[in-house]
């Protein structure tokens, strides 16, 4: 649903926590970004890997809000690119993350992959936010 243009503004979000206050904020920002017609990428690392594990987001709730699951799936179908950081095989195993256990539409990416897109984006006026 985001407009595709050469000069499209980009917002790159880093989420490193499964704390509902942070996770909801990140996904609200992601949905808001595509609503405003900008490109959005959400890079999930550390605690946030819980969110991109199959069924993980449904366990994160906030009083009065739909479950985080809805936000995650709406973000994916609206074109938000969501990636999961895999620092090392051992860490992923410890965190219970495998390629099969990732939500559909979420891909693995390391920090170089993230920066490879975030650096040029910020150079042309994009935003990189750590949540």
């Amino acid at each position, binding site marked *: *649903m985001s*407009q595709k243009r050469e000069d499209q503004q980009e917002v790159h979000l880093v989420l490193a926590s499964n704390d509902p206050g942070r996770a909801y904020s990140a996904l*609200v920002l992601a*949905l*808001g970004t*595509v*609503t*405003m*017609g900008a490109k959005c990428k959400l890079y999930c690392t550390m605690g946030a890997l819980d969110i991109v594990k199959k069924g993980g987001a449904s366990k994160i709730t906030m009083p*009065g*809000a*739909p479950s985080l699951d809805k936000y995650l799936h*709406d973000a994916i179908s*609206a074109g938000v690119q969501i990636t999961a950081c895999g620092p090392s095989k051992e860490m992923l195993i410890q965190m219970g993350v495998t390629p099969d256990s990732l939500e559909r539409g979420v891909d693995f990416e390391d920090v170089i992959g993230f920066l490879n897109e975030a650096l040029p984006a910020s150079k042309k006026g994009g935003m990189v936010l750590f949540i």
Partner: protein
Amino acid sequence: MQGELRIVLNGTSTPEIFHGCEVAKSVDTTGMACPYPSFESVKAMSLLNDDKANGCIEIITDSEESAFKSIPTICQKRKWQFLVFEEAKDLWRIRIRR
């Protein structure tokens, strides 16, 4: 409808284009949390088929922020025209079209 409901915000220089405009899509965002009222509106805007380009979209919201700020903002950003009507206390009906 214009005759029945009060326009509380005018986002068009040609309000007459809304007269008798067919509602091609209707979006009820009542009770939705931010940013869903705007998000669902944009989704409806992008799903409106070209053959219905002359129709308008109707958005219902109980959020004052959405009615007076967010939805007008996304309309202006996408160069859509809009009229915000007061449906009841804390309830607004917004008609938008290209």
